[in-house]
């Protein structure tokens, strides 16, 4: 058995702005109650024009550093997973690494795999540390995603970030098992130069989200010789409020295990950020010895699965910086559709 590795610091950031489902439905003549019921979602976070994947990543990482209490110069790699990197060509990771003081001796790559890019960054960061290549590695999950106006995605596509520093010393949550599962599945995509993504409607459900999440989860449980009852918490990708609860129940998890990391009803779908932010909300309250089951999902399509175990180091750092629920629920500003459209650059202007 090799020496344990795991999360030594974690942090989240969420923009302060929100828009309610009713406000979007009103503009498109849609029935708000049926959207709220269908998506199990009340509101979503909205990034103001000066917030993007880079700025959200910096703020989430600053919180992760407060918990890790390490010298950022010792971070050997930075991976940001996002489908909304601000530049088409120029890495987000260089700006983030520079802002946190981790340059110049660092490896960097921006990752992309729809909503799974964030968990990929976490996976690669863990692997570097496990291989003994570096002392610390940083995996960030961040998005400021857009849904086409009036499309179902517009009600859910939101913004947020979670950052995880992996290491061997003072581990807060140790990694026990990982598993990845993927096939070529065209359920959701965006071609170059297109502003909004396209999706395959109902095909995004059963053959896409459910098939890959279940496939990964079952293989991971088998690898670990575990069953749902062995975990205190479980977190899944959250394209809406309904899917993660349903997939959890299909696997045999109970509401009590899922609800702490179930952020979508009041956050929306933060794409790459979704299950990583749910994990952070769980780490905010988990007790030593609690096991956490996590499965991400990204269209295209695939899932990354992780089994984490909270250590006795976790309680001391849970409250050293702002927790996920405080960022979700405090000091919110509700936008009307016009301001939201301006914030998200959905209004055609002359420059």
């Amino acid at each position, binding site marked *: 058995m090799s020496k344990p590795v795991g999360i030594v610091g974690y942090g989240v950031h969420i923009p*302060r702005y929100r828009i309610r489902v009713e406000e979007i439905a009103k503009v498109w003549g849609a029935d708000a109650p049926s959207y709220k019921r269908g998506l199990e979602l009340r509101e979503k976070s909205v990034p*103001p*024009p*000066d*917030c*993007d994947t*880079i*700025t959200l990543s*910096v*703020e989430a990482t*600053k919180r992760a550093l407060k918990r890790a209490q390490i010298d950022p110069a010792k971070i050997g790699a930075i991976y940001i997973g996002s489908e909304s990197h*601000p*530049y088409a060509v120029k890495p987000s990771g260089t*700006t983030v690494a*520079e*802002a*946190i*003081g981790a340059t110049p001796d660092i490896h960097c790559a921006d990752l992309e795999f729809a909503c799974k890019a964030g968990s990929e960054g976490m996976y690669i960061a863990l692997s570097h540390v496990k291989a003994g290549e570096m002392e610390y590695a940083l995996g960030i999950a961040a998005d400021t995603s857009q849904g086409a106006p009036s499309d179902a995605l517009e009600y859910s596509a939101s913004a947020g970030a979670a950052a995880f520093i992996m290491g061997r010393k003072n581990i807060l949550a140790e990694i026990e098992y990982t598993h990845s599962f993927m096939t070529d599945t065209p359920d959701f995509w965006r071609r170059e130069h297109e502003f909004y993504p396209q999706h395959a409607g109902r095909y995004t459900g059963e053959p896409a989200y459910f098939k890959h999440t279940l496939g990964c989860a079952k293989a991971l449980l088998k690898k670990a010789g575990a069953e749902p009852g062995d975990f205190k918490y479980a977190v899944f990708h959250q394209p809406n409020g309904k899917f993660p609860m349903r997939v959890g129940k299909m696997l045999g998890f109970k509401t009590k295990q899922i609800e702490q990391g179930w952020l979508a009803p009041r956050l929306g779908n933060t794409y790459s950020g979704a299950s990583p932010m749910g994990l952070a909300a769980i780490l905010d309250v988990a007790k030593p010895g609690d096991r956490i089951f996590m499965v991400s999902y990204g269209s295209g399509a695939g899932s990354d699965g992780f089994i984490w175990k909270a250590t006795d180091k976790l309680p001391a750092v849970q409250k050293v910086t*702002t927790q996920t629920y*405080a*960022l979700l629920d*405090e*000091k919110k*500003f509700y936008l009307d559709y016009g301001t939201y459209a*301006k914030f998200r650059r959905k209004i055609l202007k002359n*420059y």
Partner: protein
Amino acid sequence: MNPARYAREIPHRYRLEAAKCKKCGAVFFPHRLICLKCGHRQFETIKISEHGKLETFTVIHTPASDFKDQSPFALGICKFPEGVRITAQIVDIDLEKVRIGMKLQVEFRRIQTDGHAGILSYGYKFVPVI
């Protein structure tokens, strides 16, 4: 925005790095080559704390063209424990709630977008403490 100038300003714009005179201890933000107080030329790099106290502010209603989409917005000067004063936009706040003496926090934000194709400029703004 000129990319070379942008890169030179990264240490103070991204990381709030300041220069502390090794002789008299005076702190300068952004850094300087010669101490204004004692003329010394050797400095230690320090990082400004993330919380400051708002000393004064104004609300801009007719900003420069690059910022006109953000109008009206507050611009404030905060004093930091290291002794320096920093000017920045105050965001994520109702303008009627901005008060001299309030504690604000530095947050990393996009400061400017150079048209449709130019570079994106990042730096600090002030936000209320959560």
